[in-house]
């Protein structure tokens, strides 16, 4: 009887010990993943800032205006060219 209890407890203790090792390992792996993802996120935040700046620089009104006027030869319509729809 005692013997049976002893071996059962021994198995449980060993099993629990191994699980602790395994879970600890899992947590390390997951943490490493998390760090990687955080690094990626950081990189993407940098990229987002850069794109935002690039976007606003290219879309500056003075830039758009000069491109429209010079490169695309656009102009405001004269009143004679306006047709009012109603």
């Amino acid at each position, binding site marked *: 009887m005692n013997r049976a209890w002893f071996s059962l407890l021994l198995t449980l203790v060993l099993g629990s010990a191994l699980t602790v090792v395994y879970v600890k390992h899992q*947590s*390390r792996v997951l*943490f*490493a993943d998390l*760090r990687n993802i955080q690094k990626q996120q*950081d990189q993407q*935040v*940098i990229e987002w*800032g*850069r794109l*935002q*700046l690039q976007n*606003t*620089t290219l*879309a*500056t*009104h*003075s830039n758009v205006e000069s491109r429209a006027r010079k490169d695309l030869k656009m102009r405001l319509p*004269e*009143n*004679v*060219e*306006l047709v*009012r729809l109603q």
Partner: protein
Amino acid sequence: MKPSDRVNKGDGGAVFLGMRHSFVLLVLISLLVGLITRALYLQVVEQDFLTDQGVQRQIRTIETPAYRGAILDRFGTPLAISTPVDSVWVNPDEILGNLAALKKVTGKLKLDYRDTVSMLKQRADREFVYLKRQLEPDFARALAAGIEGVYLQREYHRYYPAGEVVSHLVGFTDIDDRGQEGLELAYQDWLRAEPGVRRVIRNRRGEVVEELAQVKPAESGNDIYTSIDMRLQYIAYRSLARAIKFHAAKAGSAVLLDARNGEILAIVNQPSYNPNRRRTTATLKLRNRALTDVFEPGSAIKPFTLAAAIDRGHYHRGSNIDTSPGYMMVSGHPVKDIRNYGVLDLSEVLSKSSNVGASRIAMSLEKKQLWESFKAYGFGELSGVSFPGESSGYFRHHSQWQSLDHATMGFGYGMSLSITQLARAYAVIANRGRLVDLSLIRKEPVRRPMNEISRHVMKASTAQLMMKMLTEVVGPKGTAQAAAVDGYQIAGKTGTAKKSIAGGYQEDDYVAVFAGIAPASNPRLVMAIMIDEPTQNGYYGGLVAAPVFQEVMSNALRILDIPPDDLPTLARSKGQGA
């Protein structure tokens, strides 16, 4: 040992073996006791010290970066945003022991090697010295990767993509991200980021292997949606800059309001500066003149003199005023018109801008009445925006007025106000007599009812009569024809004021002003323009400031899809062709 000992195999041998056994046993036991004692000592006596040391080597408290909120226009175009950068720092003690590495770093950073060494030696007692701040992250990372003892610190750099177009409004921050001017200063608490604090375990190579606790979460700043419409802001900036140049003026400001809710759609100043490169900027360029600088508005005030008198029933639609002989004496000082206009009706007082007429109307009111009305139109009080350094203008209490003040107040001398205050007062006429608090912040889509954001300060009938008269000023017989926009009815008034200097007025220095409302039949926009000391190509408000209004307003009405309310003129200009 003697050879005889070995030969002797009697009792003596057994004794000898027994002794050896106990000796070895004793040594082993004493070693064991020693170990146990040492273990106990370490575990019990020195435990705190050792744990502490271990923790110090492994556990670190590190900062989680957080970024400052962005400032955006009403549609989300960034006016100020923070993007990550890295600053390079070293521990002087450490790096001075590795001069080769230092030489490499200074080379890459284009720093002077000798200067850097002497700088580091001066600060040898510190553990943290910046070598160079705010570098592009990719560059900084490549730099630090190859060299030991060089570290990076994440920071955020503030960029102002709209540059000088909106610099006076947005302001700027210092290198530590604290607001110094403009909205950056006014909304510092709202924009500010709070870096978080984490406790982590690091391995021997300094990599974080486990996070123990988040002591304080990082809190990034909040964004601000301003009321500015960048499209209009840019057009206003360009027109103003062009006018300043054409007339060789000293400075200028313009404000464009949404009349219906008091939002400021554009607010521009000249001279301006680029907030991204402001180290060389003179402080006089930093002022948001539209809010901080006051001037005597001159004739642009006349509509309010008339409104005050009409509101109290002293004058009405059909009243006539005799302005002959073109001047009048008030306590020994002459008030003059350009020429003798004779008998004028009320709208002619405005469209011909008669000083004598305006003075007579002002004097028909008691000082107190005129003061109360002007006060109600917002003269002498802040406009409702919370902007650092905003001026409430100079408007004395009526008990301090001399009789000359009483007369000159009627045509805008003896008091001063900012161009924003002037625009706000014109919005009273546009809003059928309601004074609205202005705002630099976008109001949420749900528009609050007019009676919550404004108060009645002028009779609606008076405001409508003023609209009608102001429309004639911009009409074919008025002084502000240059402000007319094809297809729209425009109401407005010019002003040309001599600049006051100590003890009097400067003969040749003028301030040209125009304030206008569009479209007159259903007012949506109010704009006021002030140009300081125009020296070339004229100086009258109608010649200098009104064209800026025309240019900005014709674009703004088109961009905001405001339907034309004056098709006959459009048809006429159609007839003339292009």
